[in-house]
Each structure stands twice: as structure tokens, then as C-alpha cells.
């Protein structure tokens, strides 16, 4: 088990490294760097000025060296202004975007300032440390995902079990149709329809808020329901169908038939015998759905103006905020891979046949 875990963690790290290098490569292509220079200085500088600014701020080094600086295995770039002795450098405040006057602080700046040292860089969009921005986004999205999980998982499991316990019945057909319809409705369709139907004020009463910005500080039923339901609805369909498939498979097993012949009531069969076996597969499916839910989170946060992790990703990507994008990529990769790992381990643990063998 431990060797398995160690192997998986090693793969995770290698994947994260490769992925961040790809993101680094794409965001540091010359046209994107030009975008960075112009957003710092203003739109009407000449190409020569772009070159000189990039050169002065450490963007002219080879790509692999700069990646090493971000990682923290290569010393950060520094530069001393010849005229007034002001120092700039990656390891100085604000990634060198703010100069340190000569003699301002007696402590020499750290040589290495990368991820390995715990310094995730400085966001050019939000003007804060990347760590702070990412944590803020994660906290808000965590709140959203918590409620999504609370709504989605019980709902999906109940629907799946009810549909699967009598395959082919009217209940099964109708619940299956509902699940299929919900998998066919992406968040930008259902969110739009919900906003159109449920947010207008009718006769002075309004059911729900169409904007979740105040939910960032204080989440209430009125401003949080629509975002949660929009995400949950899309995920619920797929999980319900997988649960139904697993349930029907279990209900046709021999031991269920034996229990019926023994005279166990239907309710007891479902609750005591079928459920534990049927829920193994949905567990893995739920874990594997998380990456897709992250997608949905991005759309819903943009739609409802909730400034969580997904919104941060869109802002960073749209404005080519390199450091923030790298931080966001690392977090996304870790979420995906950790859920995969939990899913694999969970599958082994939950299924006694595999655990014991």
C-alpha cells in the first residue's frame, strides 16, 4: 500500500511539473509577454520599449532558466539601476515591479525565491501575493463546493437507487429521463434559464437573487441557492445514472434473489443488502466527477459574479497574469490527481473482495 501511495505521489509531482512547464511555456510566448509589458506600462509604448522593459525585468533569460527561477532551483534575477542605485529583482517586493531605494533595508534579499521556498510570486492583476489570491479563491469556492456536495450527492444517490431498484418500472423510466435531461443541460444553459425564470420580481416578491456577490461574505438561501443548484444539477444526472446502473447490476445478483426467496421485505433488501454493494462504483464516479465540476464552477462563478477560484482562473487567463496562472494550474492539477488517488484507494477499501485478497 505504501509503495503504491509513494508511486502515485511521485507521478503526481512529475505530472504537476510537466503541466506547469507547459503552462509556463504557453504564457511566456513573445506575444503574451508583450501583453504583460503593455499592461504594466501603458498601451502606447513602442516595440523597442517593450524589448527593453522585458530585458530589464528578467524576461529575456531562456525559458528553462526562468522556469527554474519560478521553481526556486535557480537564483532569482536581480538588477541594479545604474543611475540611482535602486535595486530590482524577482526576490524583492512585488517581484521587482516596485523598486527598492538604495540602502532601504539592510537585509540582503533571498537568492532563491520560488515555489520550493514557499514564494508563489506576485499577481499583476490583483496586485497581491499569488498565495493570498489563490487561498481567497479556494476558500470561497470551497464554500460553494461544500453546499454543492451536500445537495448533489444525496440527491443523485437517492435518484439512482430508486431508479435502479426496479429496473424498467415507470419510476425508473421517469427518473432516468430526468437524469438524462440534466446531463444534457450544461451550466450555461440551466443557469441562464434559472435566472430568466426565478429571479425577476413578480408582484413585489422575488424568489432568488441573480447575483451571488454578497454570498461571498454572507451566504444565505436567497443568494446562494441558484449557483449551488446549477452546478449540482449537471453533476447529479451522471452520478444518478451510474448509481442506477450499479444498482440494477446488484439487484440481479444471486444473493438478492436468495434474500427474496428467504422472504426478506423489499425495503430491507434494498437498505441492508443491495445498498452497500451498489454504492462502491458511484463513490469512484463521484470522485472522478470533481474535475468536471471545476469546469462548471468556472462558468457558474462567472455567471453569478461569485469571485471564487474559477473566477480567479478566468481573470488570470484573460489578462495573462503568469504567476497567478501557474499557481492556479498547480492547484487544479493537485485537485484532479488527489481525487483520482482517493477514488482508487477508496475503491480498494470499500470493496472487501479486493481489500482482503
Amino acid at each position: 500500500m505504501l509503495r503504491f501511495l509513494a508511486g502515485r505521489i511521485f507521478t503526481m509531482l512529475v505530472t504537476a511539473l510537466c503541466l506547469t512547464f507547459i503552462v509556463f511555456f504557453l504564457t511566456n510566448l513573445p506575444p503574451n509577454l508583450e501583453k504583460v509589458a503593455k499592461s504594466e506600462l501603458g498601451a502606447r509604448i513602442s516595440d523597442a520599449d517593450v524589448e527593453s522593459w522585458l530585458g530589464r525585468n528578467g524576461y529575456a533569460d531562456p525559458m528553462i532558466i526562468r522556469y527554474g527561477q519560478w521553481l526556486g532551483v535557480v537564483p532569482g534575477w536581480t538588477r541594479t539601476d545604474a543611475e540611482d542605485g535602486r535595486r530590482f529583482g524577482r526576490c524583492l517586493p512585488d517581484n521587482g515591479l516596485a523598486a527598492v531605494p538604495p540602502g532601504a533595508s539592510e537585509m540582503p534579499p533571498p537568492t532563491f525565491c520560488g515555489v520550493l521556498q514557499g514564494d508563489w510570486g506576485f499577481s499583476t492583476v490583483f496586485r497581491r501575493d499569488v498565495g493570498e489570491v489563490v487561498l481567497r479563491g479556494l476558500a470561497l469556492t470551497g464554500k460553494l463546493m461544500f453546499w454543492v456536495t451536500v445537495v448533489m450527492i444525496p440527491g443523485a444517490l437517492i435518484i439512482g437507487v430508486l431508479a435502479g431498484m426496479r429496473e424498467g418500472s415507470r419510476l425508473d423510466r421517469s427518473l432516468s429521463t430526468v437524469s438524462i435531461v440534466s446531463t444534457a443541460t450544461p451550466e450555461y444553459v440551466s443557469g441562464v434559464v434559472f435566472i430568466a425564470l426565478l429571479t425577476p420580481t413578480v408582484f413585489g416578491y422575488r424568489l432568488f437573487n441573480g447575483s451571488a456577490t454578497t454570498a461571498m461574505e454572507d451566504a444565505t438561501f436567497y443568494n446562494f441557492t441558484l449557483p449551488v443548484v446549477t452546478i449540482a444539477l449537471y453533476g447529479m444526472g451522471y452520478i444518478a445514472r451510474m448509481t442506477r446502473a450499479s444498482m440494477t447490476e446488484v439487484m440481479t445478483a444471486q444473493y438478492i434473489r436468495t434474500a427474496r426467496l428467504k422472504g426478506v421485505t423489499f425495503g430491507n433488501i434494498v437498505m441492508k443488502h443491495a445498498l452497500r454493494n451498489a454504492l462502491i462504483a458511484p463513490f469512484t464516479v463521484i470522485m472522478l466527477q470533481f474535475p468536471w465540476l471545476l469546469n462548471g464552477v468556472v462558468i457558474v462563478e462567472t455567471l453569478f459574479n461569485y469571485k471564487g477560484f474559477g473566477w480567479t482562473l478566468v481573470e488570470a487567463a484573460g489578462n495573462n497574469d503568469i504567476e497567478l496562472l501557474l499557481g492556479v494550474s498547480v492547484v487544479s492539477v493537485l485537485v484532479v490527481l488527489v481525487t483520482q488517488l482517493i477514488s482508487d484507494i477508496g475503491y480498494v477499501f470499500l470493496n472487501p473482495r479486493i481489500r482482503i485478497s
Partner: protein
Amino acid sequence: MEPLTWTGAVGTWLDPVLWLVAGSLAVGVVAMIVMSFFAAPVTLQANADGTVMARGGAFGFVERAVQALVLALCVVVLLYILAGIVTPYGGAGIVGAMAKRLLPTWIALALTFAVSIAFKRRLGLYGKLFDNVIGMIGFALVMFWVFSAIFAGVFDMIVTHDPLSQVSGMKNEVPGTPVPGVDAMTMGAHYLLGGDALARDVFSRMIAGGWVVIQIAPLATLFAFMVGIVLGLPAGYYGGKLDIVLSFLANLILAFPVILLFYLLVTPEIVATGIPSIMAAVLFVFPVVFFAVLLNARFHTRPGVRGPVLIVVLGIMGLIYLSLISQPGTIFTFMPRWLDLFDISGGILVVFVSVVFVNAPTVFRIVRGITFDIKTRDYVAAAQTRGEGPWYIMLWEILPNARGPLIVDFCLRIGYTTILLGTLGFFGLGLSTESPDWGSTINQGRGLLSVFPHPAVVPALALLTLVLGLNLLADGLREESLRD
């Protein structure tokens, strides 16, 4: 010019019938749900006169009534469509005009169903689809959109107005508003489903958008399948180092947040660097390789046939491939104009490449999993004993036996791709803003949703029905293939 109502003159007598049937159906369904909690499970019941009944009493009556009402509802809908086709323009309102416009689609659908049902025993898995109600409904929905798209895109039928032309005075008008300046009561006198914020016809844009989606989504899914199959089969068959490397790459791409990947790839800056062209060159070579290996493996023992077949097929495919990647304005411009069959604009190409890139790893995993399972079968061992080459075994022994789950996944994946295209449109990436594809029109229409819902709701429903149809089709195919 009078605006059109939803059902026009026909509606005066057909609408009450519709409400009656629908109302009774709703009551019946509710009654059924309530009663199902108290009803006994289905058991056979012997009656006094020797007959046997499956379900009797009030619940049984309600069940049969609901069935009959569903049938009645279908008949009423059919009547609306027929009325629309038969009465002159405007007699049956908006619904009738749309039905009349869609006549080529109805004919094509009817012909397809008639022919398929007549020959269903001889048509393999496709024929078995027509034994399954769910599958047929899904198939009907999908082919509705496919036929409408083809008739609109290739033959220029169905649409009433140019999807890009803006008519002053029609901004945000409700469905059925007459177009100023047109006096005769013919097609084109009204905006059937209203105008959007730029005074363009929503109905025509919906159909034209369907053409864009039908062009891109299935083709992109097909390419993703080619890539996934060509890489998944050897990974599953050989295992070992090849499998480890390819699986790692697939997991790497799957770990990428999709939206981040789109933002990184689908921007004007990236198109300028030529990376999408390089990716296109790599990804689009897989179908050529696939067919090359397929035909080579098949005709390996008959070199006389193999040579000509390979030359012809690969020649044509090579030409198409080179035309695809050679694009003036990008880094590949080596094809002379007379040889370059077609040009795809940079924006569409990069959307294509991104969608293929995102979908390929999942297909890879599925194919690899199936291959692991099938390579233990006896017929594979038999082929190995016969001395067949590995590619022959992979492509002509393993792949045909995997076709069931693969076809099902293909249908589902077209649905996911359609949704992905919509996501791109939602963030304003990819296709031009004038493009009528459904994602972009939903995004543009959602600003004024609270006052003018129709520009956003119409493409949303279109997207919903197409993806629903694909899902139902996949479900039906899966059920039928498992019954094998």
C-alpha cells in the same frame, strides 16, 4: 401586415384540444405517481372467468389512460405539423410556418425511418435500434438537427432570412413580428422566432447555428476517436513501457483544467505563433496513419491489391490533410493554390484542434481498457497462432469487437463536444462573434434575458434537444448491444 400568433387560425380549434389532452395527461401522471406509492407490485391476478390480468383496478385504469393520452398528445402534435404544411403561410401561425419550412426535414426523417424499419433485420446494430423506443426517439431528435443543418447549410433551404443581415426596426422583437417593407404574405414576411439584439432572425440563426455545430462537433469527435484508437490499441495490446508513457501523457492532458487550456490555446496571440498549426499537423495525421495501417494490415497478403488501394486512398487523404494544414497567413503555406482544396479560417482551426486535443485522452483510456479486456479472448489467441501481425490483430480482431461501447461513447462524446463548443462561445473564445453557433448566441442573448428571453432561450433549447437526443441514442444503442 399582421403579426403571426403562435398557432393562427388552425389554433382556434386545435388549441383547446391540446390543452384538454395535456391537462388530462398531467392530472393522470400526478395521479399515477401518487397511487404508485400505495399500489401493490405487479402480480398476475386470476379472474373469475379464467382470464389473467397483470394490473387491475383503479391504478391499472389510470396507467392505461395515461398511455392513451400520451398517444393522443403525439397525434395532436402531428396534426399541428400537418396543418402547418398543408395550410397556406400564416394559416397555422408561427408553429405552422416553421413546420412548413421544415418540410424537407420531415420528408427525410419519414423516409429514413420507413427504410430503416423495413430493413431493420439486415442492418445489424443500427437496425436493432429501431426495436427500442428510447433509441428511436433519440435518433429522431439527432437526425432532425442533422437533416435541418444539411438542408440549410448545403442546399440553402429552411432558413427564411440571412443569418447575418440586420433589418432596421426588428431589434429584440417578439416571435411573429412582421418585417417592415414586406407586404405579401409569403415566407420571409415575419421573423418567426423574433429578432435578437442586432435585429437578426432568431429562427434562421438557430438553424444556421445547427449547421456550424453539426459541422464541427461530429468531425472533431471523429478525429478524437482516430487519435484515441491509434494510440489506445497499442498501449493496451503491448502494455509495458509504451503503455506507461502514453498513459502518463493522457493523464497529463486530463489533469489540465479544460477552460485554462482553452484560454491558453484559443487566443489571437497563440494563433500568431503557429502553435495551433503545429498541433493540427500532428493531430490530423492520425486518421491518415489509421487508414494506412488498416489497409496495409488487411491486404498485407495480397500485394497486388494492396499497392493500388493504398496509393489511391492515401493519395486522396494526403491531399485533404495537406490542404487542411496549409493555410495562408500561418506558418504552413506550402501548398500551391491550385492544389489547395479548401481553407479553414484560423479561428475555426484552433477551435477544432483544441476540442480534439481535449477529447482524445478519454477515448484513449476507453480503448485501452477495452483492449486489455479483449486481448485475453480466444479469437485473439487464434489470430496470434495464425501468425497475423500485431496491427492486423488490433485493427481487425480487437477493434470490431469493441465497436459496441465505442459507438455508444461516440454518440455521447458528440454531445460533450457540442457542450464544449458552447462553453467556448460562452467565454467569447474561438468562433467569431457573428457566428450563429448556439454557444455564442446564448452568451449574447443572456444580457437582456429578463426582458427579451427569446434570443437566448431558443438556442438553449436547441442545444438541449440535440444533446438529449444524442444521450438517448447512446442509451438505446447500449441497451440493444447488451442484449446481443
